[in-house]
């Protein structure tokens, strides 16, 4: 039995289009893995297969040795697999603080409670405060999310998922749309994460990838082209031609 997430023979077809081809890999606890590849390579689809948004055509996904294949999306989150959305998906009418409060309450299994106040637990409120500080969102805390700039919304997106304290954290292009002056907040947030956490980061910004990842997987046309250390990936000619040399789509 391996600890962490293990994927075996995972495939996904959309009609005739094969978007994941027999993917086998493991994301052990403590790993900092980056998933890169051109647009349309199937990175988001792979993330959605892990979180249960999509059902695979075939293959198995094990978390700490146990299959999560039959679990619904929310059960997988409760088991510890969480992801951010590539296209920001937030509660637009709620304030930033309320947005962050929701995943925290959910993590504490409290969203079925009627006879108490949603901000009634000081420890949880302090946790929100800390997350807001970490991502420099404190001045915006009581503004509705719909009024925020897109880059700020990206940070809230990250905050929601961090608030879940997952065991496996999947970040789908967290820095896309974040001004370069603020992308260090994302790097710092990732560096602050508990060491035993498994992080899978999908990202086009190679500088950010090199800063946080100690392993890089290159996905092309739904198949793994290369899986190795950052040095191996940079020095690989095929990758340079296919991806790094070309326009970052």
């Amino acid at each position: 039995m391996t600890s962490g997430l293990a994927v075996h023979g995972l495939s996904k077809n959309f009609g005739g289009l094969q978007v994941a081809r027999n993917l086998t890999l493991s994301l052990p606890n403590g790993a900092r893995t980056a998933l890169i590849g051109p647009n349309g390579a199937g990175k988001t689809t792979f993330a959605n297969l892990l979180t249960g948004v999509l059902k695979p055509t075939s293959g198995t996904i094990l978390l700490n040795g146990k299959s999560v294949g039959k679990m619904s999306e929310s059960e997988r989150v409760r088991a510890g697999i969480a992801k951010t959305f590539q296209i920001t998906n937030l509660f637009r009418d709620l304030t930033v603080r309320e947005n962050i409060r929701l995943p925290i309450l959910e993590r504490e299994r409290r969203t079925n409670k009627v006879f108490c106040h949603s901000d009634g637990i000081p420890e949880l409120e302090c946790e929100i405060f800390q997350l807001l500080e970490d991502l420099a969102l404190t001045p915006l805390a009581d503004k509705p999310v719909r009024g925020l700039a897109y880059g700020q919304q990206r940070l809230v997106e990250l905050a929601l998922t961090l608030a879940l304290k997952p065991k496996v954290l999947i970040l789908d292009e967290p820095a896309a749309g974040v001004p370069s002056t603020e992308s260090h907040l994302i790097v710092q947030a990732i560096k602050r994460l508990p060491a035993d956490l498994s992080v899978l980061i999908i990202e086009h910004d190679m500088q950010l990838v090199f800063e946080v990842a100690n392993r890089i997987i290159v996905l092309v046309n739904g198949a793994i082209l290369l899986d190795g250390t950052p040095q191996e990936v940079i020095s690989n000619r095929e990758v340079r031609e296919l991806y790094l040399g070309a326009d970052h789509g």
Partner: protein
Amino acid sequence: MTNATDQVSIRRKMGRLAPVLPALIVSVAAAIAFILFPYDLAFLTRIVIMMIFVLSFDLILGYAGIATLGHAAMYGCGAYAAGLVSLHLASDPLIGLLAGAVAGALIAWISGCVLLRAQGVALLMISIAVTMVLQETASQARWLTGGADGLAGITVSPLLGMFEFDFVGQVAFVYSVCILIAVLIFCCILASSPFGLALRGIEGSASRMRAIGTPVYRRKVTVYVIAGAIAGIAGALAAQVTGLVGIEVFNFSLSADVMVMLIVGGAGRLYGALVGTLVFMVVHHIAAGIDPFNWLFVIGFMLLIIVFALPKGLISLPDRLVALLRRKP
């Protein structure tokens, strides 16, 4: 960190007080109405009952964002349950209310398990179909429901054994207002609870709620059952106060009216439900008193104006005016 704890505790103190205010406002308004319109108590009682009904719809539409056109199903079941209980089992009004709540919750649970899996048009249609099934059943099961003639002669014993229901309707009015206040306080508590926040999250983005681990379907069923119980209470009250239940309680137009009242007032805000009901019922009373079809002109134009000019309902009018005034000078 102390700063955080301070902020948190101030927030909490304000939050605790929140449910008291609306209850106070409703009591004062009801007292004034009671004194000013002593001969219209029957009509005022109808408004109060409708407010309870619309509040229950606000929980599912305004908070959880579930649009149905079949909310009369729960109201009707509550009305029949209360009527039958008082005719055959016990005449105590509170037992009747309890029966109404249970019936409303039960039908909400059974139908909710089916219809909350659907969305959009399919959801609207299933909710309509469920109400139609109930209406036809009520009209066919003559032995139980009296068929198209309905249940008549429903009487209830004195409230709490002390207050006899009088002809003018004073007890009925006070009784209904008390229930409204209780429901309103409950809704305020719910709105500020973790569950209430989760409902607003579902309204905002169900896919995001799933991604943070919420069993969205289960939460929807829960709120549907709660709203069903409250709608059942409203139906039970109506049965007790008028002494009648007919198959019209399942009319499509009742479900549509409830939606209209809520949107006119402003969905997702409890005051909106109250204001919308009041305005709708009063305008209806006046316009329909002149000519029933006149009323359709009035409500038709009112709806178009609301949808085009005030999409967040009458309750947002003050905000909108303030915003307009600020922009002018």
